[in-house]
């Protein structure tokens, strides 16, 4: 029986390798977002939240606008886009707004987004929203990651001014790391995934990492 079980495990591996093997970690983006983000500081130097501006790609913008009635064709006002913005922030909640913050290594939580609206310009939709931190923090090191763990959405930050600090103490230093050196990680990850069948965090190697050091 023991040998049989072991054989069965091998069989499952064999079939699994063929069936899922190549797909072990090949989630692929369908939506591209170009982001800029601002970290908002209170006068006492603590971080209170993150303000995002996410511009969707051409195709997804068109898809999202499908069926929205406007007064003038091809022109979408902020009011006409309000219901869509509402839908967006509600859907994004399920994914934790793809924004993950750590203050001195401790995970921080965000409240419901505020001040959210959509803007349509040059055939692209931009979603603006602010995520307030549940409790403002004043860490030495704040780490912020923006990515989709399932990599359905590809996040890349804008070339110009990707990150801005608003009202931060003068001594604070920003470091920004784009996800363009995932080679080693990808290899490691796909082997790991294959062994434990978990690729829920596949997108982590496409994460944009922002670190702010305030001495």
């Amino acid at each position, binding site marked *: 029986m023991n040998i049989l079980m072991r054989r069965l495990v091998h069989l499952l591996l064999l079939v699994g390798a063929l069936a899922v093997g190549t797909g072990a970690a090949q989630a692929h983006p369908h939506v*591209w977002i170009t982001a800029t983000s601002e970290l908002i500081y209170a006068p006492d130097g603590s971080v209170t939240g993150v303000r995002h501006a996410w511009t969707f790609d051409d195709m*997804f913008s068109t898809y999202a606008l499908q069926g929205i009635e406007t007064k003038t064709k091809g022109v979408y006002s902020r009011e006409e886009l309000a219901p*869509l913005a509402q839908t967006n922030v509600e859907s994004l909640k399920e994914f934790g707004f793809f924004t993950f913050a750590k203050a001195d290594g401790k995970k921080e939580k965000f409240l419901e987004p505020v001040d959210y609206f959509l803007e349509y310009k040059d055939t692209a939709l931009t979603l603006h929203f602010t995520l307030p931190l549940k409790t403002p923090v004043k860490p030495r090191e704040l780490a912020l990651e923006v990515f989709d763990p399932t990599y359905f959405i*590809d996040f890349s930050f804008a070339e110009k001014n990707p990150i801005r600090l608003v009202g931060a103490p003068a001594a604070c230093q920003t470091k920004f790391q784009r996800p363009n050196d995932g080679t080693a990680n990808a290899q490691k990850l796909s082997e790991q995934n294959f062994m434990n069948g978990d690729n829920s965090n596949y997108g982590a190697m496409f994460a944009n990492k922002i670190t702010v050091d305030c001495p």
Partner: protein
Amino acid sequence: MRLKPGFARALAICVAVAVVVLALDGVIQVLMAQTPFGGPRPSGAEPQAGGIVGWLLAKQSEFYREMSATIRAAKSDGSAVWTLLAISFAYGIFHAAGPGHGKAVISSYLVANQETARRGIVLSFASALMQALVAVVIVGICAWLLNASAKTMCGAEKAIEIASYALIAAFGARLVWTKGGGFIRALQASQPVPALALAGHHDHAGHGHDHDNHDHSHAHHDHGHVHDEHCGHSHGPAPTELAGPGGWRRGFGAIFAVGVRPCSGAILVLVFALAQGMFWAGIAATFVMGLGTAITVAAIAVIAVSAKDLARRLSGGREGGGALFMRGVEFGAAGLVLLFGVGLLLGYIAAERVTCL
């Protein structure tokens, strides 16, 4: 000790498969080095991941992102439609290597159900074309006829997705039920075989001679049974399991369960094309994309079926054990179909997400 060769054989098969997969990866990496990827990367380039994974990701992202521009161009320049079709075809081929598209389900079904490679190809094409058709129907009805919003459309997509996963799970459950029977019968048949060997060895030992005799005849009976059911030295599937009258109907079940779930990429392309007043180009692109998808899925299905044939040949040496091994493979593959269905349904297996944002 005498069971060890079986285990070694199973191990050998696994190693063989691993070697093939690694070799494939190596070949693709070498090919990759020759493509113009080596040039200096512009800053802010697409994220680079290693091996097959990274290459596929980069390729399909490239194709996909070219599609919107090409559809726009096709409005004024008819020849751009051909470019669109070429891109869609390439995208379909690369894209299908990702999760979804029923590769895993179809391959497992083929392995579980003694199907031929030829039928695997037919099933792959049928399910891919059905996926394309469903995408066109959804966008045609929701967006074109009803002018529904993206939210409504994504609601429809979600409902269809759940139905598809439930169907896969149900289909898998039925396979497990059928194949489980075959596996248990093979298991029972093989159990007395070690006793037979022992009997041969300890024949001269004084005790339990009668008992040995009893075992001997019993084993003989079972051996005959195995022989009838699945001929150890025949290389084809047992005649009773070859495509009978119900075979194609079962296959249709697989096509339907897999094909009813459209590809998110196709939906996006169709809506985009519709908004540009080029719906017909979007429809053509979707079907060409489906054709590309079918080629990849069919290739993987053929590999799965060939691997099973190889496993059958490798395990064919010993009669009882070989049959048990193959029943085990089928049972395992049937279990995988069920696991895929349940896993997808409960969200444990990441599938391609529907476009709800």
